[in-house]
């Protein structure tokens, strides 16, 4: 993963609330088997409307999206984060995010920045004309007009973002602890890995 320290530039001054994952990327785009290329489907239903913010040439390619409460609600589909990433978005600023979406955003190097509604309203105004900057070093969002909004991030996730760390690799390094837990499990809850589970099921006629 690419390290993310600052995200600066134009921002989509959108502000819409309760943007669900079906809006971010409609289900018919989910049929891909790779991560790339989903930006084309991002916000398809919004883009179908004339005058929408995403097709406004003023904001094309913005690395920041400003949205309202409860961004990314709905399904757990990570395609939402891939779609945003594929359209070049590296930070989303909103008053709140769905839990699952913000987890997915982190894992794909997108910073979910939680700011109070007033700050988000202000940034929507600023973004109509000027650039916005999200700085993970100082944990602030700033504008050319002396605005300075502090935010917080889980320290571990912040470190992963800033160093571009791969979470799977980090956890695999904890192998001793995981193996120890599995030994405990075999002893105290043998039915979890019990023989009754192994391969009971079920290969259909069509398995290739």
């Amino acid at each position, binding site marked *: 993963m690419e390290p993310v320290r600052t995200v600066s530039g134009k921002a989509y001054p959108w502000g819409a*609330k*309760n943007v669900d994952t*079906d*809006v971010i990327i*409609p*289900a*018919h785009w*989910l*049929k*891909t*088997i*790779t*991560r790339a290329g989903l930006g084309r489907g991002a916000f398809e*239903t919004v883009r179908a409307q004339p005058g929408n913010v995403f097709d406004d040439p003023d904001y094309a390619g913005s690395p920041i999206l400003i949205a309202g*409460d*409860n961004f990314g*609600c*709905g*399904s*757990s589909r*990570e*395609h939402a*984060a891939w779609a945003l990433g594929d359209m070049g978005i590296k930070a989303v600023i909103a008053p709140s995010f*769905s*839990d*699952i979406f913000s*987890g*997915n955003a982190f*894992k*794909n190097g997108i910073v979910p920045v939680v700011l109070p509604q007033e700050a988000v309203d202000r940034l929507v105004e600023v973004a109509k004309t000027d650039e916005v900057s999200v700085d993970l070093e100082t944990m602030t969002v700033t504008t050319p007009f002396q605005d300075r909004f502090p935010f917080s991030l*889980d320290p*571990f996730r912040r470190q992963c973002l800033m160093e571009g760390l791969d*979470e*799977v690799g980090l*956890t*695999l390094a*904890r192998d001793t*602890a*995981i193996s120890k*837990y*599995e030994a405990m*499990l075999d002893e105290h*809850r*043998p*039915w*979890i*890995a*019990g023989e*009754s*589970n*192994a*391969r*009971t*099921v*079920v*290969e*259909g*006629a*069509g*398995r290739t």
Partner: protein
Amino acid sequence: MASRPLTLYEKVWAAHVVERRDDGTCLIYIDRHLVHEVTSPQAFEGLRAAGRRVRRPDLTLAVPDHNLPTTARVDAEGRELPIADAESATQLSALRHNVSEFDVPYIDALAAEQGIVHVVGPEQGFTLPGTTVVCGDSHTSAHGALGALAFGIGTSEVEHVLATQTLLLSPSKTMEVRVEGKLGFGVSPKDVILAIIGRIGAAGGTGYVIEYTGNVIREMSVEGRLTVANMSIEAGARAGMIAPDDTTFAYIKGRPMAPKGADWDKAVAWWRSLASDPGATYDRTVIIDAAEIAPALTWGTSPEDVVSITGTVPAPDSFADASKREAAQKSLDYMGLTPGTRLQDVPVQHVFIGSCTNSRIEDLRAAAAVADGRHVADGVRAMVVPGSGLVKRQAEAEGLDRIFVTAGFEWREPGCSMCLAMNPDKVPPGERCASTSNRNFVGRQGPGARTHLLSPAMAAAAAVTGHLADVRELMG
């Protein structure tokens, strides 16, 4: 050390901590991982790229469901029929390829046990009380009905679980939703969960794991509990749980992957210890009087837009909050509804009985009881999609398929079907569907499709009357 009373969630969480970090996040062991074709290809791709293996194939179970057409899968000679949609076919064959390369237990599209992941898990005895269950699908919360801590994850987490059998998580807050009293005539588990979501709101559960308690939940079958827990995510909650009890154990016993012999006794003893201790406290408690729950449905495009079937379409002005007023107006425009209209006067063109919320045998029985001796109204297309091949067989053994087909319903092969617009089962733009699924979002059942969420019996009532209808008037 005297310990404070703990909730079900706290006990299951504590039993799965591999390591706790200073900041409170924990490496949590995952006992059960369900995999389907939509959210897994990129995870396997990631493993392959990094030269990693699946750590515990024996704790993993893969089954295709989202993309599969619900029409016949084999021809008269038993040969597999090709899937017309090229991208769907690619995802399905990628799953076959991946499970074979990574040696993951797999229920194929052509196996009798195939079905929707959240129907198959409990049905096979793969889902057990006190386990952690994950799947790359948000309605994984359903498995909490058996007392599991079960939640949806994204594809990077799917990859993480495949490689490490763990997830790094922060503990959630706890919410008790207690439903007490006596449910009225014709009120189903779906009405209960719709009432709960209507009360706490679509974001009301954000940051929480809900535990459903109270006599109404205790008296519910496991299938009803699955319907309730399934929609926890529609209240914004990470997961929903129900304490395992004798009803749960009776449901699990003898299922193919359930513990057997001495393991069974040991397991039940442990499961019994998981119920929340007397005096355990929750961060929030919501109490709902069962007598106030009516057969219900949604009118808008959020699952919190719940109204009784005897009600009318609300006016945006009736909401105190400005953003809610705006959202209501948008919903009404999308749904093509006018405030003040009686819901029972709203005609439907489609009826969908299925999805992981309501496609188990009890759901089909409830719908069949309404359909029996009646006929689908003119101009309505009604389909019944069993949640698994085993549900389908059971229904056929009980003659439910004959009831449906005689009444003019389509009787289809198991899968997610019209729950989401991903396979050929879609609602055309501007048309209206009475659906037993769990999401009424804009475009969920197809671009421009209008969805009303309701129970299987209410869906059947809509099918035979041609409009949204109060099922109580059709019940004996």
